[in-house]
C-alpha cells in the first residue's frame, strides 16, 4: 500500500515525518500549483468550496505519482469539510482511479474505528508505537508553529527584505531533519535564534493586522497568494488566528495562540452566539480580540461559498461598527487573481495608515 494525502501548509513536513517513523510507504504529491488547482476545478462540483477543489487536484497528482491509497480526515459536520473524503472518494473512483480511501473520523466519534484505521495505515507498528511516534511528531508540529508565529511578527522589522523568509526556510529545514525530542528542541531554538538574528530596525512602528478566516485559506500560502509574506515585507506586524496545531490538535485548548476556544466563543457571543461549524464563531471571536488588543485592522480570508465564514462575514459589519475596527474580507477561489488581491490589500493598508494619522492628530 502506497499512501498519499493532500497538502495544507506545513502538513506535508509533519505527515512525512510521521509516516517515515512508522515505516509507511507514501508518496508526496507535488506542492500545490496552478496545475493542481486546474485539475481540481475540472473534476469538483462547481460551487463546492475552494479547498475541496484544490485537495482533489493534490490527490489526482498523488495518485498519478503511483499511490494506491489516500488518507483523509473526516468529520461530523455541520461544515462541508466532514464530507470531503466521501466526495473525493466518489469523484476519483468515477474518474477511474483504483485506490483505497482511508478516512480518519474524529476519535471522539468512534475511538475503535480510529484505532483500527491507524493500525491499517501503520500495519508494521503496534498502537503503542504509533502513539509514541505521534507524540514526538506533535512536538515538532508545535515547534514549527511557534517559529512561524515569530516570523509573522518580526518580518515587519527586517532591515533587508526577505532576510526573515530566508531564516525561516533554514529553520524549517533544521526542524525537518530533527529526529529525537532533544534534537527537535535544539532545532527549534536554532530556528528561533535565526529569526532573531536577522538585522532589524526596531524604530519602526508598524501597522498591526490580524488575519482570521477559514483554516485552509489561512494555512496554504499558494491559495492565499502568500499574503502574509506580502504584508510582512510591506512592514506590517501580523498575528494569525489559526495554526496547523490548532487544527490537528486533539485538545480543545489552543496551544499556540494561548487563547482557548471557550474564551473566543465568549468574545464572539454578542455577535454570533452559537457555533456554526468550521471557524465561523472563532473568526468573529478573534476579530473582537484583535479589536480589544488595539490592532489597526483585520483581514478575513473566505474561500468562495464557505458557509461558516459567510455567516461570520454577515455579522462582521456589526462588529466593525461597534468596536471600530476595519475588516477586509478577501474571497478566494480559482477565479481570484493576484493583482486584484494586491490592489485591495494596498488600499486597505492606505486606509489603516490614514486612520492612524487621524487618531494621532486627534490625540495630539
Amino acid at each position, binding site marked *: 500500500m502506497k499512501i498519499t494525502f493532500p497538502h495544507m501548509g506545513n502538513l506535508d513536513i509533519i505527515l512525512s515525518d510521521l509516516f517515515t517513523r512508522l515505516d509507511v510507504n507514501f508518496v508526496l504529491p507535488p506542492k500545490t500549483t496552478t496545475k493542481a488547482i486546474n485539475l481540481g476545478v475540472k473534476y469538483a*462540483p*462547481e*460551487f*463546492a*468550496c475552494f479547498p475541496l477543489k484544490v485537495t482533489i487536484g493534490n490527490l489526482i497528482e498523488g495518485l498519478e505519482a503511483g499511490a494506491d491509497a489516500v488518507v483523509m480526515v*473526516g468529520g*461530523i*459536520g*455541520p*461544515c*462541508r469539510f*466532514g*464530507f470531503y*473524503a*466521501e*466526495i473525493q*472518494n*466518489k*469523484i476519483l473512483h*468515477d474518474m477511474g482511479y483504483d485506490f483505497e480511501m482511508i*478516512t480518519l473520523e474524529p476519535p471522539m466519534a468512534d475511538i475503535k474505528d480510529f484505532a483500527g484505521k491507524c493500525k491499517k495505515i501503520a500495519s508494521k507498528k503496534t498502537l503503542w508505537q504509533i502513539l509514541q511516534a505521534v507524540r514526538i511528531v506533535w512536538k515538532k508540529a508545535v515547534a514549527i508553529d511557534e517559529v512561524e508565529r515569530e516570523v509573522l511578527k518580526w518580518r515587519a522589522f527586517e532591515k533587508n527584505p526577505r532576510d526573515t523568509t530566508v531564516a525561516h526556510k533554514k529553520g524549517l529545514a533544521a526542524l525537518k531533519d530533527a529526529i529525537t525530542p532533544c534534537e527537535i528542541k535544539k532545532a527549534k531554538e536554532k530556528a528561533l535564534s535565526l529569526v532573531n538574528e536577522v538585522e532589524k530596525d526596531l524604530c519602526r512602528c508598524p501597522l498591526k493586522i490580524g488575519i482570521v478566516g477559514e483554516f485552509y485559506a489561512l494555512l496554504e500560502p499558494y491559495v492565499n497568494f502568500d499574503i502574509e509574506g506580502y504584508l510582512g515585507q510591506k512592514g506590517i506586524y501580523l498575528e494569525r488566528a489559526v495554526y496547523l496545531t490548532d487544527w490537528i490538535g486533539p485538545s480543545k485548548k489552543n496551544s499556540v495562540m494561548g487563547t482557548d476556544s471557550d474564551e473566543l466563543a465568549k468574545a464572539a457571543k454578542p*455577535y*454570533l*452566539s*452559537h*457555533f*456554526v*461549524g*468550521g471557524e*465561523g464563531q472563532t473568526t468573529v471571536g478573534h476579530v473582537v480580540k484583535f479589536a480589544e488588543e488595539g490592532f489597526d485592522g483585520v483581514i478575513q480570508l*473566505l474561500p*468562495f*461559498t*464557505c*458557509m*461558516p465564514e*459567510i*455567516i461570520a*462575514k*454577515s*455579522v*462582521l*459589519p*456589526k462588529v466593525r*461598527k461597534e468596536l471600530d475596527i476595519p475588516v477586509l474580507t478577501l*474571497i478566494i477561489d480559482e477565479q481570484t487573481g493576484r493583482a486584484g488581491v494586491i490592489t485591495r490589500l494596498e488600499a486597505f493598508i492606505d486606509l489603516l495608515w490614514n486612520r492612524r494619522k487621524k487618531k494621532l492628530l486627534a490625540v495630539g
Partner: protein
Amino acid sequence: MKVGIPRALLYYKYFPLWNTFFSELGAEVVLSPQTNKRILNLGTEAAENEVCLPVKVFYGHTLSLKDKVDALFVPRIVSVEGGAYTCPKFLGLPDMIRALDVDLPQIISPTINLKLGWREFYRSIYELGGYFTKNFFKITLAFHKGLNDLRSFKHLTQNGCLLNEALTGRFSPVPKGPLRIGVVGHPYNIFDSYVSMNLIERLQKKDIKVLTAEMVSPEIIDEIVSNLQKKLFWTYEKDVVGAVFHWLDTRAVDGIIYVLSFACGPDSLIQILIEHEAKEKGFSVPIMPIVIDEHSGEAGLVTRLEAFTDMISRKAVKEKS
C-alpha cells in the same frame, strides 16, 4: 402580541406547529405574504453578496414584517434529530438577522438542538412559551396541539398531497398524464413559487404528475441513508438523497429534477452522491439539475423544462413500444 413568521426557509417544514403553538398561547400570528419582487429586493439589498438565495429571501420576508409585528420569530434550529445537523446557516440565522443595520422588533429565537437530548428540547419550548404565558400546563397543551397539527400536515404530504397545497389548503386538480417526474431539493426553493418560477405548476399544466421527497415515508428514507458509506450529517439533505435513491430503486419516476440554489453548500456535495449512485447502478432515469439564484430568468427555465419533458415523454413512448 403580534408574532411575525417569515414565509421562508423552515416555514415550509414546521409552520403548522408554530402557528398552532403561538395561537393557542394567545398570540396573533402574522405571516409574511408570498415572495414577490419587492421582498426579494429587500433581501438581496440587505444581505452580504455571498449569502445563498434562500437566506436572502428570508431576510426579505423578515424586513417586510418588521413594522407590522411586536416580535419576529427566528428560531435557531441546530439539530432536529440526534446524530445530525441542519445547514450551518440555520445555526447562525438569528445572529445574521440581528446584525442587519435596521431597527428590528424583539426577536424570539429559541435554540432547538436535539443533539442535547429531549430535556434541553423541552426546556427551550418552555422558554419560548414563556414569552406569552407563565402557565406551564398551557404551554404543554399548546405544544402538543401544535405537534398534532404538524403530524396531520405530514400525513397529508405523505399521502401524495403537495406541500404547498397542504400548507395553504388550496388543492389543484390531479394531473392525469402517464408521466411522473420527481422534483427534489429544499422545500423552501421548490415550493416558493416565485423562487422556483412556478416549476411545479408548469409541470402540472403539462399533465405530469409531480412527486416530491415529502411523499416518501421517513422509514424508507432512513433505511436507504443508513446504507450509505458515510453517514450524512445534514438532516434535510437526507430527504433528498433518500427520495432519489428510492425512486431510482423502484423506478417510480420517469425523470428527476434536482433544484439547487446557487452556492448552497450541502447541495453542491449531495449532487455528487446522487450522480455517482445513478451512474454506479446504471440507471437510465434522466436527472436534470436546475440551479437558481436571484438572477435566474424564466425563459431559460421554460426552455430547459420543455426539452426535458419532451425527452422523457419520447423515451417513455419508445420503452412502451
